[in-house]
């Protein structure tokens, strides 16, 4: 888990997304699939800008939700990993423009 926490994270090129009623809907272009995020995942997704690491996203979420940091890091790392597998996010060792 420590390795993913230090990665910079960006939204993948060409995904389409919109937030409706506090929940994001994302379309991945390669397969035209729609994906839904719940309210908490949507707020994390909104903070992704290519210049923040996963750890920094956890810190932002820590300020917003009353959850232990260790739990947050585990949950957000899992979420980011799943979204990367679905080609919604990209991870890098350096900031992503």
């Amino acid at each position: 888990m420590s390795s993913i926490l230090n990665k910079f994270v960006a939204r993948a090129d060409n995904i389409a997304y919109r937030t409706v009623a506090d929940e994001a809907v994302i379309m991945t272009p390669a397969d035209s699939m729609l994906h839904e995020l719940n309210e908490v995942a949507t707020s994390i997704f909104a903070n992704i800008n290519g210049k923040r690491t996963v750890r920094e996203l956890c810190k932002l979420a820590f300020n917003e939700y009353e959850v232990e940091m260790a739990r947050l890091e585990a949950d957000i790392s899992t979420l980011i990993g799943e979204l990367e597998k679905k080609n919604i996010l990209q991870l890098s060792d350096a900031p992503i423009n």
Partner: protein
Amino acid sequence: MPRSTKIFKRLQQKAEKRRIPLNALFELTHRCNLRCSHCYVDNENHTELTTDGVKKALDILKDNGTFFVIFTGGEAMLRSDIYEILTYAKISGFVTTLFTSGTIIDGNNAERLIKTGTDDYEMSIYSDIPSDHDALTGVDGSFKRTMGAARLLKSLGAKVTLKTVWSKLNFARVKEMYALADKLGCELRGAPYISVTNSGDTAHLNTRCNDDELTELFSSMYELQKERIDETFNEVRSKEYDYETLKDKRICGACVTKLRIDPYGNIYPCVAFGNAMGNITEDDFKSVWSGDSFAKSFCELRVTDIKKCRDCDRFAFCRYCPADSLKECSDMLIPTDEMCRVAKAHRTAFYNTMKKI
């Protein structure tokens, strides 16, 4: 576009509940290089939105929740800034579709088009017989160019959908039309609805199929999808007239989850309603969207307000269009004879197919 998924349906329901204009049809120009006989567009000669004007309109749509944008014309490819507009829309997070005849797409510009990231290309094809297609578009060689563009875009990895208007011209060519789409690796979508134009023209209505032709058309389509008949039957059952369910259901998505922008920035409830509600670059969008008197009263209407359709046995097969009703009957709540006729033929074809299997 992912029209039938559960997530898509939930998204549309959320948008309907909150009256979010999730779906926009954006006419970028009314200029066209074809002269299709059934075309609803008035060839007005006004000053179109500039590139910056289109971008501003897209910004406003994004801020108000629009997710799906269909760019169309006229022929949208006639705009020299089409690549810039499509790219901007993708960067802005829209799901984008380009309606085009494909007649201006070739080896010189196809790769540039692909680079815009456009999610879907939709092209109209009116017959598998080139001369029939060309007769309808009024341009010799248009069939060949459209097919060439579809093949080219597919070869470059694009998603291409073929669309048709089923009419006297092609109702007997259903199998051949689907075979043509299959050969290209494209989905074919079509409907037999030929409407009065927004300016009231009716000359092209003589291309509508008669009753027997409609029944033959629907029967041919069911023949092609016999394996889906159980599924279709369940869909039909779920759409039968039920007052309790329908008393809360809006008639359609016009000015609820849908809107149309014309090349001059005017905002309309949908593609079929001709009454502009305001202008996207000149007026405050939120005031137009929530304050327009027609939109407000239209949003109050429910399916059960269409009294003539109560308990109609064709209801599950009907595509009720209040704009067509307004144009043909001067009343949004009276079904046109055409809607009833098409629904009857569809119902007959469906149950005939059920009996056969």
